Each structure stands twice: as structure tokens, then as C-alpha cells.
């Protein structure tokens, strides 16, 4: 298969991986040597995994569907897949996204205008399987043959005579986890087609009908969150311990005695953090506590199940899980009788809770929800907090989380803040609604099993790596401290992995962090710098 162009009709052909990703094919980045990468990029699978799991898409594994042990097992899988496919087009089963799906399936003319917008496609060296129109075209042909039941002549005319077997299903399941759902392709389509949504809908088919999804976003993700409270596994008692630790940290580092309000009734604001912040970036929680305390905001955190973890992985793959998590979040707020909910620095949580779940929550669960960015902007611009930009006198660039910027339109508040408090703020190109995904979108930031991390670091994240290096091209000297402001937990996770993989910390003195940390770092009333350069 390798060596010639891969076509949609190849998806069901058994055998070798459809494509092999080689470092020489990848989009070049001037500051990074291709030789620095070890070949093949899709290393890391054991012989047993190769034998037992379907990994013949591109050699990488995000889900790892076990091969069927018998013909009957394969037939059962095919049958279930077709049942799910049918349900995607039924009003009762898919009222949630039927109209956008039908529109995209019916209207695309495959002009390929969207292809160059896709960072994974371009960064991979334009591998055909990653082209935004590839997956929808496969689905279209399957629908023609198996749902519409086109006859032999029409199948030839529409090129839909395609065999549905385990290989195709397993490859398709993997392939929909090679799209970060950043929706840059959607943004450019003159017909309003949303090819990323088609990927998301196929993910949904796999999850809602076949129970197939990456372990990190289903079992360890939404299922765990609904059961114990957080995708990190953090329980309410553990949360209390961590918050106590954070309070001590604030006291030790900043000399401030701040009590973080927990489960305070009738507060003005319920602040909903991504629990990843508690575990990996507690400085983000600290910064919010310091700032809100200084601004006298009547706020609280919740320790209800899911009320302290803003993540909602359901938005990437499963409407049912998305709705369940959103309801839990809203219930936590209702219980505390808060006036509004502010979603912290987490992109997909913004979109899931404020936008997607907007048409799920009704009645007393329909509590006003907003991004924390306008609130931060108000604090910074109103003069309520005294700030000294000289404290942030180092090069700063801003990553735009797709969910907050392209998918919610929140573009300027964070920029106005940075322009005010960071004298060396420089935009990466492109930026704003046109910015590229970090490469960790749609769950990739948390999918680390088997060899998937290599894919997201070398392919989906490659464009972001290039943007960061280009933004800092005049100050790459390692004696100059540089800061990538990534106001989203998942983006931070992905940028951390990029910095590690390409040694940007040691090599170029590039570090990353959130937005609120920069605000607190500029606070005049804080004696020591808040941001610590390691």
C-alpha cells in the first residue's frame, strides 16, 4: 500500500499500514533538525500489541481495537456499526447534531479548499488519510451502499462500491482520532460544511453504539468523573487536601494568608477549574485565589462530584456523556445558589458548558455561565488591581485555544490584558480566530498510551511548534526568558509535551503558563515575582 497515493477505497484492504510517517516527509521547521527524530516515528508498539490490535492505519494507536477472534465476531461488529450509522440520521437519536451532519454530508463538493487549513494534514507532509474530506467521503460512500442501498449501477456511478469489514471499521475508528476538531477546515468552507463535525459524529457512533472510545477519555475520563468527581481521579476529600496545600503554598511563597472559599452558599461566582490545574499547575489556582482575594470578589469553589472539575470530555465523542457531565456541573452550582459560573482557563470546558450544553440545561439548571476572560479583563482594565507591566518585561506570545477563540469568538479580552501588562507581547502568526490548534485538542492532550504521544507531538502539534519558534525567532537566545501564554489546561499539557520533546526549555529558555499567572506576576502588591523560572 505504501508508495502510492492512498484512496478512500483502500480503507478496507487488509495488510500493511496505509501510510508510514517518516520524519523527512514532515513539514520542515527551520530551527528543528529532521534528523533529531528517531525512525520510524510510529515506534513503541510491542510485538504483542501489533499482533492483537488493529494498527494498520498509520502505525499509531489511540484506541487499539482488538482484532476479532472469529468471522462471527467480525460480522457482529459490522452489524452494530451499521445500526449506529443509521441512528446518526434519526431525529430521536441524533436531534443534537442531525442538521449540521446532514448539511455537511449533502453539501460538500470536495473542492479541497479546506485541506490547507488542517494543521495535521499539512504538518504530516500532506498524507492523504488526514485530509479533512477523507473521512466524510468514506462515510458518504458507506451511506450510499449500506443505508441508501444503492444498486450496482448507482454504486459504480457514485464510486461507493466499498466493502465494510473489520479493517475498515477499525481504521476509521482510529482515523477520527487523527482530527483535533479544531474546525479550521469549517471556518474556510464557502458552503458551510463542517468536516470536523463529521469526525466527531463518527466518534459518537463508535461510543454510543459500539462502546468504543479511547480509554483516557471514556473509562478514565467521563465515566470516572461522573463516579468519583474528576477525570484525574481526585475525590472530594482529596480536593480539600490539595486546596489546603495550595493555601499553604500561597502563604509560603507570597506571604499571604488566603482562605480559598469552598462550598460557600450564595456566592456571586462559582469558579470552575479544570482539575488538571490542581494536579499539574497549582500555580494557576493560586493565582486566581490571590487575584480574586485582592479584588474582593465574592466567589467559591465547589467540592461536589464533578463540581470541581470543569472538564467535559463528552464534547469530543459522546452526547450522552457530555449531557451528563454538564448536568452535574450545573447541579453543583444550583446547590450553592451561586449567581453565575465562571469557567476557568480550560478551552473545551468553555465550549462544552457555555456553548454546547446551552441547549441541554433548562429551568433551574440554566444558570448564567461565562468565560473567566471578561472578568479578568474587567479586573485588569478597571484599575481595581495595581499592576506594573515592568514585572512582565520578557517576550510573551499568546496561544489561542480553539474552543474559546474560534468556537466562541472570545478574541480580544485576553489580548487587551496582555497588551496592558506585557510590554514585549508579540502575536504568533496566524492568530486570533485563525490560530492553529495546539495539537492536543479533542482529547489528544490526555491520550498518552501506547505510541499516540509521538503522533500528537510530531504531527498534530508540529504547526504550533513552528508558530512558537517563529514568534520568538528574534529572541531564541537561551539567555532570554520567554513565555508562551496558553490559557487552557489541555493546550498547556500539549505545549509542555512539545517543549519537552524538542528541548525548548533548555535549548531556548521557553516556558509556558496561563494568563492569570501573568496578571498576578504584575501585581504591585506582591513582593516576590509570582512566576518562577526554573
Amino acid at each position, binding site marked *: 500500500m505504501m508508495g502510492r497515493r492512498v*484512496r478512500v477505497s483502500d480503507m478496507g484492504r487488509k495488510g500493511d499500514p496505509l501510510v508510514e510517517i517518516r520524519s523527512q516527509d514532515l513539514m520542515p521547521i527551520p530551527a528543528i533538525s529532521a534528523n533529531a527524530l528517531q525512525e520510524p516515528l510510529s515506534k513503541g508498539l510491542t510485538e504483542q500489541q501489533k499482533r492483537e490490535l488493529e494498527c494498520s492505519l498509520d502505525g499509531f494507536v489511540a484506541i487499539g481495537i482488538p482484532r476479532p477472534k472469529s468471522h462471527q465476531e467480525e460480522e457482529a461488529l459490522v452489524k452494530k456499526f451499521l445500526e449506529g450509522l443509521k441512528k446518526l440520521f434519526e431525529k430521536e437519536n441524533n436531534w443534537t447534531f*442531525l442538521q449540521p451532519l446532514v448539511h455537511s454530508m449533502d453539501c460538500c463538493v470536495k473542492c479541497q479548499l479546506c485541506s490547507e487549513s488542517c494543521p495535521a494534514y499539512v504538518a504530516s507532509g500532506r498524507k492523504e488519510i488526514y485530509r479533512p474530506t477523507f473521512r466524510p467521503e468514506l462515510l458518504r460512500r458507506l451511506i450510499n451502499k449500506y443505508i441508501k442501498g444503492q444498486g450496482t449501477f448507482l454504486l459504480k456511478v457514485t464510486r461507493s462500491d466499498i466493502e465494510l469489514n473489520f479493517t475498515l471499521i477499525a481504521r476509521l475508528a482510529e482515523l477520527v482520532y487523527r482530527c483535533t476538531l479544531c474546525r479550521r477546515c469549517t471556518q474556510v468552507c464557502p*458552503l458551510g460544511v463542517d468536516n470536523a463535525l463529521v469526525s466527531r459524529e463518527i466518534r459518537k457512533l463508535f461510543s*454510543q453504539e459500539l462502546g468504543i472510545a479511547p480509554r483516557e477519555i471514556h473509562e478514565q475520563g467521563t465515566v470516572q468523573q461522573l463516579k468519583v468527581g474528576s477525570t484525574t481521579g481526585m475525590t472530594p476529600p482529596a480536593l480539600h487536601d490539595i486546596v489546603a496545600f495550595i493555601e499553604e503554598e500561597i502563604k509560603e511563597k507570597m506571604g499571604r494568608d488566603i482562605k480559598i472559599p469552598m462550598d460557600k452558599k450564595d456566592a456571586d461566582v462559582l469558579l470552575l477549574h479544570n482539575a488538571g490545574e490542581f494536579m499539574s499547575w497549582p500555580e494557576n489556582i493560586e493565582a486566581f485565589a490571590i487575584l480574586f482575594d485582592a479584588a474582593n470578589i465574592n466567589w467559591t469553589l465547589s467540592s461536589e462530584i464533578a463540581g470541581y472539575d470543569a472538564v467535559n470530555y463528552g464534547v469530543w465523542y459522546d452526547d450522552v456523556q457530555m449531557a451528563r457531565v454538564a448536568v452535574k456541573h450545573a447541579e453543583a452550582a444550583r446547590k450553592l445558589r451561586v449567581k453565575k459560573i465562571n469557567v476557568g482557563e480550560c478551552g473545551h470546558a468553555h465550549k462544552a458548558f457555555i456553548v*454546547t450544553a446551552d*441547549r441541554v440545561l433548562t429551568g433551574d439548571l440554566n444558570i448564567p455561565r461565562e468565560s473567566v476572560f471578561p472578568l479578568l479583563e474587567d479586573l485588569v482594565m478597571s484599575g481595581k488591581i495595581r499592576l506594573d507591566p515592568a514585572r512582565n518585561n520578557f517576550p510573551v506570545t499568546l496561544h489561542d485555544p480553539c474552543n474559546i477563540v474560534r468556537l466562541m469568538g472570545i478574541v480580544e479580552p485576553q489580548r487587551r490584558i496582555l497588551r496592558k501588562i506585557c510590554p514585549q507581547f508579540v502575536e504568533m502568526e496566524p492568530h486570533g480566530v485563525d490560530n492553529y490548534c495546539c495539537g492536543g485538542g479533542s482529547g489528544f492532550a490526555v491520550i498518552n498510551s501506547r505510541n499516540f504521544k509521538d503522533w500528537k507531538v510530531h504531527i498534530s502539534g508540529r504547526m504550533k511548534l513552528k508558530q512558537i519558534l517563529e514568534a520568538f525567532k528574534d529572541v531564541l537566545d537561551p539567555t532570554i526568558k520567554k513565555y508562551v501564554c496558553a490559557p487552557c489546561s489541555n493546550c498547556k499539557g500539549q505545549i509542555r509535551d512539545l517543549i519537552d520533546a524538542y528541548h525548548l526549555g533548555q535549548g531556548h529558555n521557553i516556558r509556558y503558563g496561563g494568563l492569570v499567572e501573568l496578571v498576578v506576576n504584575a501585581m504591585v502588591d506582591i513582593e516576590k515575582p509570582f512566576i518562577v523560572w526554573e
Partner: protein
Amino acid sequence: MRFVLAAFTYFGYLFIITMYSVKIIKYLRLPMHLRSEVYPVIPGDQVPKEKPYYENLEWWTKPRQQNKLHRLWFLFSDYFFLREYFRRDRGYWLVVYPWHIGFIFIITFHILSFFGALFELFGVSVAPNSSSLFGIGLYYVSLATGVISFVSGLFGSIGVLINRLVRSDLRDYASPQTYFNYLFLLMVFLSGLLTWIIADPTFSEYREFWKGLIVFKPIDVETVEAVHILLFAFLLIYLPFTRSLHYITRLFGFLLIRWDDEPNLRGSLLEREVEEALEQKLNWKGPHIQSGSTWRDVASGEASPGRSGV
């Protein structure tokens, strides 16, 4: 022959109007969906930007900026610019633009010919020496749209066909139907052009044909013109089986999906719609789903675990 031409023309128009209406109604009756908007609303710098309301502190207390006229203007004007193609794939724009202009103008030309015939029946001469300014205007506009359509459409058809054959990214996603569509349209434009050159340089004969249709007294036309009329009638019958409806559904795709950021405010009509949607039963069979329960019960955890789809 005249009866065949008349029958196909009547049927062609009736068929396309019926089929498009059915399809559009079906499209518009699709259920309300979860939001999946993409920003910016109205790309580029054609019109002033709308400030996205989520940028406002406590956005629900403030008026939302939304200029429906700007949105419509952008969408309609883009039919005549195809801005994204121009911006991102200039080479393809060079052929796809005349092709689309050819298509829009051929529809316009045939509609104008119908109205030209109608006005002539009411005594308004549609000719360069007409005593009515309106008649003179209609004559020249019909002539221009017809000629522009045929020339532009023919050039575009050849261009898109060559592009599909030559460019692997387009070829790999094309089907025999794609090529048939291009060739069919090419024949329609070519026959129109030949009609203008050989048989009907002022399109007066075509207006006569339409007059015959309106008063149910079909007339004969020159062979080349008959071929064009027949091909155009076939095109009308064939279009509903292609993706051509995107000319219309594109508007819905933007207005009802990509730019649909209508928030679900408490006590609103939208909220009532959401409540109704949540009462529907779902039949997904994933192990974590209580198949047969309502969306509301499944989401709130009130669905019976015994009804699991496992």
C-alpha cells in the same frame, strides 16, 4: 417536436420546483440542534465586525450585536465573488468562478426570457427599438445574461473538468457522476452558445417559444435551439439529484448552523424547544446508555440502570 419541447419544459420546471421545495422543507424541518457555531461571523473585511457577545462581562445582561442584513448581504454577494476560492485557491477560482457565474446567469436568462415573453403578451415589445424603455432594458439584459452565461459557463465547464482530471486531490474524490455533471453542463452551455451564434442572435425566437408555452400553443424552433431547450429541461429534471441544492442550503448552513449563536435564556421559547427535545427517547446501545429512556432521564442519571443497552 414542438410538443415534446413543451412537455419537457413544463415538466422540468414543475419537477425542479417540487423537488427543491420538498428538499428545502425537509431540511428546515430538521430538529433544533446543539450549538456548533464558528467565528468570525462574516469573515474578511467586507462589513463591520459583530462583537461576539461572549466577550462581554455578564453577557446575558447586555444587548447582543447581530446585524442580519450584513449577514445576508455577505452570503448573497458571495455568489458573485466566491471570496474564499479567490483567497485560498486562485487557480481553481479562475475556472470555478466562471462556471458558477455561467450557472447563475443561465437560470437568470431563462427566467428573464419567460418574463420577456409575458410582457410581450401584454403588449410591451422586448426589442432594441421598443417604444418602452423597460422593453429595451429587458432586451439587453436578457441578451447579456444569455451570452455571458454561455461563454462563461462553457469556459468554466472545460476548466473544472480539466482541473478534476489533472489535480490528484480533486480526481481522487471525483466519481463518474462528477464527470457526467461537468459534461452535461458543458453541453447545455455549448448548445446555448451555438443557438446564439447560429439560430437566435437576439433570443427573440426563444421568447416566442415561451409565449407559446404561456398560452399553451407550442411553436417549433430551429434544431440547435430545440437541442438547447431540451438539454436545459433535462438539466432541470436532473439537478435535484445532484449537490446543486447547496446554492440554497448554503444559506441555511450559515444562518442556522455556523452563525447560530442564539443563547438559551431561561423562560425563552428556545428553552421550551430544548425541553421538548429532551423528552425524546434514545435507542443507542452503548454499554453506558440506558436505551429506551428519554434524553432527560439519561442525562440526569434518573434512567433505570436495568434498561442498559448492554
